[in-house]
């Protein structure tokens, strides 16, 4: 009986419809992330070394036995170059909101073909991008802020309602990423009981540092604080999920629920997350990881909240 009730509640939740603004912002941010990461590789000829077969211009054997690149003739400079240009083209089309889900699907398939060529030379950002593109295939994300919208309505924006469930899945995806990465930080340098020196030592690793990071030794307590914040923030992600539940059931009674909604725990998690990602970008070179992650942030708030925040910003910038 309880299972049936839960199932009905789920079906009802997934029936929710809302404006497409958040999905559109998610699409634009993610598509631009895909475009810029490939454009930078292409400009520096990194693809010729990492994604092309050994003997042609690559450093290791890249011989896909199936899939698009195999079908196009293998990982040659020409084929890989064409697929990169194609992916950048469709990513730009996705950002502009041309072609709806089909464009996102093509971008996704092209990107999968590229990032699976050499799994040694990649990172979690590839997965953040492909996961996002799949979610955007599931969603009518070009209902607003898009060329599609302009062609259909004569306006760049529209109040047309779209299903909210894909935005929920995007939130679940990024929270899963944060939580499960936190659960795996079992090192004595991360966990309570140790000296919270993980970030200090990670900053010293030459693989990821953007520049020399020995200066952190002089602000070591600050790095310990940042380590503890990062660990607790990631491990306590279920509280973020709880904050969403409390917001969804705001009309129900309960002191904890009321406190969560009054303090807006969800926004605090978002602020800490933004500080975390901006710090990572400033001090470490981990590719487009932070930008891909922050693209998901567009889904953390409802379109109504985004609209009213935007109205407040406009009122301040352009006084009536």
């Amino acid at each position, binding site marked *: 009986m309880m299972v049936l009730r839960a199932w009905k509640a789920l079906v009802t939740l997934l029936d929710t419809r809302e404006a497409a603004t958040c999905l559109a912002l998610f699409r634009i941010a993610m598509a631009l992330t895909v475009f810029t990461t490939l454009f930078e590789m292409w400009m520096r000829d990194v693809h010729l070394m990492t994604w092309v077969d050994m003997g042609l211009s690559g450093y290791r054997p890249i011989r896909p036995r199936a899939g698009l690149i195999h079908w196009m003739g293998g990982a040659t400079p020409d084929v890989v170059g064409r697929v990169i240009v194609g992916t950048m083209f469709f990513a730009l089309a996705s950002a502009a909101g041309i072609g709806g889900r089909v464009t996102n699907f093509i971008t996704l398939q092209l990107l999968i073909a590229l990032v699976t060529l050499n799994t040694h*030379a990649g990172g*979690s950002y590839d997965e953040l991008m492909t996961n996002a593109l*799949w979610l955007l295939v599931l969603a009518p994300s070009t209902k607003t802020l898009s060329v599609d919208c302009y062609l259909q309505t004569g306006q760049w924006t529209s109040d047309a309602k779209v299903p909210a469930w894909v935005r929920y899945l995007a939130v679940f995806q990024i929270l899963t990423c944060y939580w499960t990465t936190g659960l795996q930080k079992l090192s*004595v340098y991360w966990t309570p009981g140790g000296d919270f020196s993980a*970030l200090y030592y*990670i900053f010293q690793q030459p693989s*990821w540092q953007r520049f020399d990071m020995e200066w952190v*030794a002089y602000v070591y307590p600050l790095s310990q604080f940042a380590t503890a914040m990062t660990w607790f923030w990631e491990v306590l992600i279920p509280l973020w999920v709880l904050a969403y539940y409390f917001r969804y059931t705001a009309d129900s009674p309960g002191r904890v629920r009321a406190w969560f909604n009054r303090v807006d725990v969800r926004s605090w998690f978002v602020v800490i997350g933004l500080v975390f990602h901006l710090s990572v970008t400033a001090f470490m070179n981990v590719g487009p990881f932070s930008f891909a992650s922050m693209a998901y942030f567009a889904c953390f708030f409802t379109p109504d909240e985004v609209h009213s925040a935007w109205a407040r910003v406009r009122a301040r910038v352009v006084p009536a």
Partner: protein
Amino acid sequence: MENFQKTIWPQLRAVFVVVHLFAIFAMAFPAPGGGMRRSSWRNPTVQGEFAAWTGRLNAVGVDIEQGELEDHLWTFASGYMVVRGKVLTPFKPYYNRLGTWQSWRMFVAPHRFPSKLNVDIRRDGEWQAVYVMRDPQLDWQGHVLDHDRMRSALFRYAWGHYRPTYYQLCDWLAKQARVDFPTADRLRCRYYNYQSPSPQQVRDGTQPTGTFKSNRVVRLK
């Protein structure tokens, strides 16, 4: 069609969402992944973690030796990976075709004994450094070696089980060196392995010294 939209589609959509959530959560759930190599466990960073955890367990009254702890963890992790593999198998096409892989093992522990790639060439019998990781003065091929995708690869190649690919990388570098340094007769790749200095050591200016490993010399002429 209207009936499908109102009654069947919401149910199908809910089934899809539940399957999707299960698929991604099952794959994202913590697993040792690439850590399932007993040889990698001998790395000083990993040994340091085991020693610290053994100490922690001893401190709370669990009487266990480091070797025992490693054996128990190996047995548990091996079994867990078998079960995990079976659970994930039906979802593999979903991961592979639609890019829904989940692997969030990011910075699970700081590498206390990191390695820096060094590339040298030999001219007139003298070795000369041309690339040292993160050295802005010695950045031959830095436009590719310092890119985030190659940073990820170079981090991996410092581990012993990537040795064959590391050698392929050295051969690739030799090919570039033949063009850029026509008078050189040898190229040498090696990793400088050292212990990261503690905050106190940095402040005192007493840097720990390291050793070179994974030497690979390629003839250019």
